[in-house]
């Protein structure tokens, strides 16, 4: 199996995103019909941000246990492949949740939202990966991701002067542009990934 080593190495940390998916499914089953509207929001804010979890904790040993000094010369292809494998796995999970949410709601969500979810998954995971590698610190990177998601949720994507990647109101949004947005997100993610590989090859701390 492709990710066998990585999953074993990650230990119980691997299961956290799965746990949140399970919570989501339970929530989905319990929620009364009138509250359907917020389901998609919860999928975006409480489950999807975990897209960074696997790619980032996969490189835990790199910066906590000095593996970087052994790998710096060689890393590159592996970093990219592991990232793509984990992100694909996560996308399958998210799209599955999206699919069963549709079944629950009965009247399906616009299919454009698939583009949104794919774009968000890539942009979050690649950005947090880049921060982790640039600062050589999983703590700072994952904390800033959590803070971002939290403050976006509280302010419903307004107020803060940074880009807002979540959609809080489906009605007021032009869904037809979502596929263009996805292309842009994927493009930016690719840049983040190349930058990640570049910085993974240097072991010097950039800040601190």
């Amino acid at each position, binding site marked *: 199996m492709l990710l066998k080593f990585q999953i*074993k*190495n990650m230990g119980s940390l691997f299961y956290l995103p799965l746990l949140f998916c399970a919570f989501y499914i339970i929530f989905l089953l319990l929620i009364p019909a009138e509250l359907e509207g917020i389901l998609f929001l919860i999928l975006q804010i409480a489950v999807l941000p975990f897209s960074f979890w696997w790619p980032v904790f996969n490189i835990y040993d790199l910066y906590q246990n*000095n593996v970087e*000094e*052994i790998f710096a010369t060689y890393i590159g292809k*592996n970093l990219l492949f592991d990232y793509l494998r984990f992100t694909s796995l996560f996308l399958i999970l998210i799209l599955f949740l999206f699919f069963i949410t549709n079944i629950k709601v009965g009247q399906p969500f616009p299919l454009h939202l698939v583009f949104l979810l794919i774009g968000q998954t890539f942009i979050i995971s690649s950005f947090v990966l880049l921060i982790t590698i640039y600062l050589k610190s999983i703590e700072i990177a994952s904390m800033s991701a959590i803070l971002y998601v939290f403050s976006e949720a509280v302010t419903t994507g307004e107020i803060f002067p940074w880009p807002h990647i979540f959609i809080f109101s489906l009605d007021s949004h032009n869904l037809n542009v979502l596929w263009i947005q996805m292309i842009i997100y994927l493009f930016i993610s690719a840049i983040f990934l190349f930058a990640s590989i570049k910085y993974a090859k240097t072991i010097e701390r950039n800040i601190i």
Partner: protein
Amino acid sequence: MIKVRNISKKYKNRYSLKNINLNIEGIYGLIGPNGAGKTTLMRVIAGLIKVDEGEVLFRNSYDSSIKSLRESIAYLPQDFNIYPRVTIEECLNHIAIVKGLSKSFDRKRKVQEVLEIVNLVEHKYKKIKDLSGGMRKRVGIAQMFLTEPKILIIDEPTNGLDISERFRFRNLIRSISKDRTVIITSHIAEDVEFLCNKIGILKNGEILKEGTSEEIANYAKGMVWEITAKPNEISNILHHYTVLNIEKQPFDNLKLRIFSKSQPKYAKPVEPKLIDGYLSILEGDGVFDVT
């Protein structure tokens, strides 16, 4: 042969390495106190960090193209402590993948081969977290041989090992150093003496002296003394001199090895060892002062 030419490296406007010049061949040992810059110098030679000034030149017998050169260097960091939850075999297999051994069959063979080098074949199903410090270091050594290294760089090979593990590990390093250039660092003069044919003493980012173990030892010529004393005189001597060693003798006597620039009373001069030379060189620089 590795020539280190005028290497300088600053961190936050402080020199971690200052105008370093070295000629490295055979088994080379770097000794120096904490924060001397040993690890920094190793990383520079391994090509892991950039320098502000100077260059590292690799001479003869190595292919000169950068890629093959980089790959002919194997590096073992100071704290090698990775992948606690997986087995030795899985760990090495993964490192081999990252190092570019993509064919599964070749990789299996190579992992088996390196396990044999470090004598860990019968432990290969043990998890890394269950290993002793010495075994973990041996996994670190094994990892270096997944490629075909010509240059081995080992930071603090014996640090944190218990006595018997230390001896076993030293012998292992000796046995793998044949036909290779090896650079090790240590705090422990004895280990460097055992392993290295050339030694550099590093302090505050500067090389104070470079030479063979005997040459370094000679810096303490006339500064090492032996004195025979009774137990009740010990505290007085300890108060005035740096005592390097105390040995029990017949009739309740103690033989003391003393480091001192002037001759203590009743003391006779003895041949200095590497540790003495090392101490005298550091003292010349002002760290070592017992009055």
